[in-house]
């Protein structure tokens, strides 16, 4: 019979293996995209217009399109999400209203991305066509904004709750009003957490494909306005890979997207370090 100490060693070896395996999976995904994409990557790839049905040239319109939809999404979800968090932490702490808001926000977070796509299609592209320009960058951006809203609410709420109660009391003790306390104590203290949430949401918005796939057009042109049609990195990548148009450009696009995600991830880590310092201080 194997002794319990041998079993213990074997089990621990497996636990170590599992963690190593996960690191290896991550490295193989990153490494593979890097190796396959680096051949296409250059400054002109990022800044040129596509040529010959995306087989040559660059991916500038898609980069610009991604940037625009993300700006639209965050311009909507940022204020609304942070505002909701302020309301939930400072005005309406408990009670039925805040419970329903939390449940809706959690449910919204669980909605599959393709369902957001169907919703965006029927709301923005058909019902509100006259206001959004139908399948436009505005429609795509707003759909993504709806999708990242729960993330912003949750991270901002956590950030505001982490501001010590005592600091709020000190502020009131000095005669500050509720609004002054929120502006001078709660919001500044929550900034690293809110920023982390916003960057997380930018990462999600820039990487999503399914919610906006019905609202983009595969035009190799610069988007004219918010109400005009456009393309993003993700949707272009989908078409290139699915139709097998050019794997080289597809992997170049994938690498571009991945580098954006890596940079955003690095920024989040800086904010998180600050956040944990704040918590220790508090």
């Amino acid at each position, binding site marked *: 019979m194997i002794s319990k100490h041998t079993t213990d060693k074997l089990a621990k070896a497996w636990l170590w293996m599992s963690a190593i395996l996960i690191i290896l999976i991550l490295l193989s*995904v990153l490494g593979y995209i890097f190796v396959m994409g680096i051949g296409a990557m250059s400054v002109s790839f990022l800044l040129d217009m596509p040529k010959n049905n995306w087989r040559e040239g660059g991916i500038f319109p898609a980069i610009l399109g991604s940037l625009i939809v993300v700006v639209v999404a965050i311009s909507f979800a940022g204020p609304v999400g942070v505002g909701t968090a302020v309301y939930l932490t400072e005005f309406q702490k408990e009670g039925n209203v805040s419970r329903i808001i939390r449940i809706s926000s959690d*449910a919204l977070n669980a909605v*599959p991305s*393709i369902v957001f796509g169907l919703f965006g299609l*029927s709301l923005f592209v058909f019902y509100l066509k006259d206001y959004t320009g139908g399948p436009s960058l505005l429609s795509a951006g707003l759909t993504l904004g709806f999708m990242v809203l729960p993330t912003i609410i949750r991270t901002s709420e956590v950030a505001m709750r982490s501001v010590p109660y005592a600091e709020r009391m000190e502020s009131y003790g000095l005669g500050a009003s509720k*609004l002054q306390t929120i502006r001078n104590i709660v919001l500044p203290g929550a900034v690293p957490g809110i920023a982390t949430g916003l960057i997380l949401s930018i990462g999600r918005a820039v990487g999503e494909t399914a919610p906006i796939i019905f609202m983009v057009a595969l035009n190799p042109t610069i988007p004219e306005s918010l109400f005009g049609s456009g393309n993003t990195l993700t949707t272009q990548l989908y078409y290139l890979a699915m139709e097998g148009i050019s794997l080289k450009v597809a992997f170049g696009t994938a690498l571009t997207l991945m580098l954006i995600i890596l940079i955003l991830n690095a920024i989040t880590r800086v904010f998180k370090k600050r956040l944990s310092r704040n918590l220790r201080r508090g």
Partner: protein
Amino acid sequence: MKLFDPEKGVATVLMVFSITSILILSLIMLFILDGGLPLFNKVGITDFLFGDKWIPAKGLFGASQFIIAALLVTFGSVLIAVPLGISCAIFLAEIAPLWAKRIVRPAIELLAGIPSIIYGVFALVVIVNLVKISFSLASGETILAASMVLAIMILPIIISISQDAIESVPRLYKEGSYALGATDWQTIYRVIVPAAGPGIIAGVILAMGRAIGETMAVVLVIGNVERMPTSLVSPGETLTSAILLEMGEAVVQSVHYNALFCLGIVPFVLVLVLSVLSSKLITKSKARFA
């Protein structure tokens, strides 16, 4: 007396902001039902759920093959991800030295942040070929390939929720076990894992929801054949991938369009049920040690 109280003004504005998420959720339900339900004027609900012929041109909308494929892909991915994910969660919570945690935690966060389309493109070449060679198939675009890529994508959810659950097991439990002469491993699988059980199951359930709802990574590797899948190494088409592929050709408000919205209702409802179940379990498992 002040005519305008700025605090009340701000409170009202913030309340409007807060109601936005309720409004969006309600609108989503409304629009998805509005898009989907007209189907049942033409096709019976049982024909939709259990029929296995999906031929839009002939007015046949049996979605069972998509439902079966989605369930197979989901269970496959959970089967692959659960052993690995829970082991890694135990590793992080119980035995990892600080330096190892500092490497593995960020790696898992990054894994969670990689867009699904990137996983799709990776799997399209790497996993598909792996499956093709391992099973000597004509094409590796199969249910199994989709399960494998989904397994990678749901690992972070399983790991982070299981780790939370394991770490919330009180020290007393562990100390009691050690005092009886148990080894680390005996303590882990006889005491800690059972105590953290509901939390771990909550993570797995949430991961299932994520897998059912995933579209982009699946559509690139599953082969997209509208046929009832016969095995894990046969191609298929899931609910989400069918919507993605067919929406372009469906005429607005046609029966086909309605049917595609109905395909969306199925994962929507499943995912909502699973996420409610999961958060109930998490609350329950937290209450156990409180």
